[in-house]
């Protein structure tokens, strides 16, 4: 029988933190000794971003139990609001403080969007909810694509048409330029900052799960009617989980924006294929399993790069690995085998 207790969850959480820490140290060692290709170096920050996206989506999918396909939309909101702030305040504030503020703003704006979208969307269930979040994700991306914001001494100018209709002064500066996005965002992101942000996200999510609010959220997932009958405020806790999930995605977006010189909302980075890729991380790592999300995000991000040498066969092997991982994780026989192993090792311990 499956057993869980408090000390065990604490132990589990510690293992998760330790795993991230070890991965960080290992990469730092490689960086110091110079045993890492420039290609891999370029992947380090995106890796952190994907890990954050995966664990935050797991809060919605695994803990709240609602399928969301619009997660990249929240990342997009965070990325643009964070980059917009950085662009406006560049040179006016100390860099580190400005970046910290950008992260907080990205989190806050994405969180607010989470609440705004969550209020209508969370009334739906299952497939319906998935489709509507997908639509919202696309709407966000497309809106950002036609958004023009400029700044001159009269203040901010907005337009949904083109940059000329902003009617800026001679010294005015276009900050968000429609489909061309935001250019020249300061490059503040680094691997270390990414890891710190992963730690903070993990801390928030794991502690939330193992608290009174987390139990309420999971009770809604397991049985909404029963949760209601014992006085759990369904709307409040659904929105709480959804908006925290959105704000962490927003922070990942800010990190993303500060890792690139040009930020544009393309289907590739903020579209539904991105949302689905994040969902794949979550499903493969195990729905509701935060550590699994981290591992699968890392493997599935590195895999296409490691297989680059195989050129044409790359995506084929990627797909095969996906299927193999799924079988290994979720087929009843594999689960039985793993349980057997666990029991075996337990017995050995008891004998000693």
């Amino acid at each position, binding site marked *: *029988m*499956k*057993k*869980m*207790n408090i000390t065990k969850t604490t132990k589990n959480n510690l293992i998760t933190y330790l795993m991230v820490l070890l991965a960080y140290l290992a990469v730092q060692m490689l960086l110091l000794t110079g045993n890492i290709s420039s290609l891999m170096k370029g992947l380090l920050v995106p890796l952190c971003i994907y890990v954050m996206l995966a664990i935050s989506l797991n809060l919605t999918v695994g803990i709240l139990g609602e399928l969301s396909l619009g997660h990249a939309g929240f990342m997009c909101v965070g990325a643009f609001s964070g980059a917009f702030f950085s662009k406006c305040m560049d040179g006016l504030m100390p860099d580190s403080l400005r970046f910290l503020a950008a992260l907080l703003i990205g989190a806050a704006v994405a969180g607010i969007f989470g609440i705004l979208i969550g209020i209508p969307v969370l009334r739906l269930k299952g497939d319906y909810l998935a489709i509507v979040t997908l639509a919202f994700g696309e709407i966000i991306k497309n809106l950002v694509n036609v958004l023009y914001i400029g700044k001159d001494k009269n203040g901010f100018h907005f337009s949904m048409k083109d940059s000329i209709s902003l009617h800026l002064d001679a010294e005015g500066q276009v900050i968000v330029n429609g489909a061309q996005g935001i250019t020249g965002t300061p490059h503040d992101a680094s691997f270390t900052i990414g890891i710190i942000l992963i730690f903070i996200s993990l*801390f*928030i999510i794991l*502690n*939330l799960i193992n*608290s*009174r*609010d*987390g*139990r*309420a959220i*999971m*009770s809604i*997932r*397991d*049985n909404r*009617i*029963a*949760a*209601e*009958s*014992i*006085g*759990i*405020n*369904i709307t409040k806790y659904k929105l*709480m989980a959804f908006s925290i999930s959105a704000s962490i995605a927003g922070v990942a977006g800010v990190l993303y924006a500060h890792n690139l010189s040009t930020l544009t909302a393309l289907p590739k980075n903020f579209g539904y294929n991105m949302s689905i890729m994040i969902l794949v991380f979550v499903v493969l790592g195990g729905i*509701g399993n935060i550590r699994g999300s981290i591992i699968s995000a890392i493997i599935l991000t590195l895999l296409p790069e490691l297989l680059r040498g195989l050129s044409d066969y790359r995506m084929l092997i990627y797909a095969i690995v996906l299927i193999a991982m799924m079988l290994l994780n979720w087929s009843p026989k594999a689960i039985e085998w793993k349980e057997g192993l666990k029991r075996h090792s337990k017995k050995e311990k008891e004998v000693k």
Partner: protein
Amino acid sequence: MALLEVKNLTISFGGLRAVDDFNIEIKKGQLYGLIGPNGAGKTTVFNLLTGVYKPDEGIIRLEDRDITGLKTIDINKAGIARTFQNIRLFKELTVLDNVKVGLHNHYPYSTIEGILRLPKYHKVEKEMNERAMELLKVFELDGEADYLASNLPYGKQRKLEIARALATKPKLLLLDEPAAGMNPNETGELMDTIRFVRDKFDMTILLIEHDMKLVSGICEELTVLNFGRILTQGKTGTVLNDPQVITAYLGE
């Protein structure tokens, strides 16, 4: 003074009057039974009492407070908790956590205190654990506190559902077919548990049941429903010997 007072409760689904002019008065500390053939509207009455459905007509008063039309969570806060005919536990949570969710509204701390693990979190969680274990002990579930709820045997799942309902500190406990699917031994044990809950928690209990042994064994008063209407009401012995009731159950 009656703890629960229901007057003229009526609800229709389409053209069907599922519950029609339902009246009941339950005194504090009573063990009250609601019986009737399948489809008589018993569970609908429970759903009306707990705010799952809004009545078309009628008044529900709990300790003289009008709770008609309140939302389910507010009715629970007002003091009515229930169990379900088809068990509804939080399957992926542990037995202990199931009860702790029930304690939710009585042991508050803020989200920030929970995430940052401030002293209040530790203090309240400890109190919650102690209280939850106390409740589990009453139902002899303390040994299984760490099991997932879905791994409990059927009879214990029923008990856990009652424990969870009691965790919300209700004034009135509604049990929807607590003995469904139980063998005579388990039913006997359940009767003891229900009596024990009433005495130990000073609880008022309204239960729906088909098992006549259980009904005649523990209920002091009965209301019999048939086709959504009250057939008869009164002391258990009198009601069960009423020819109308026998006809309703067994046919002419």
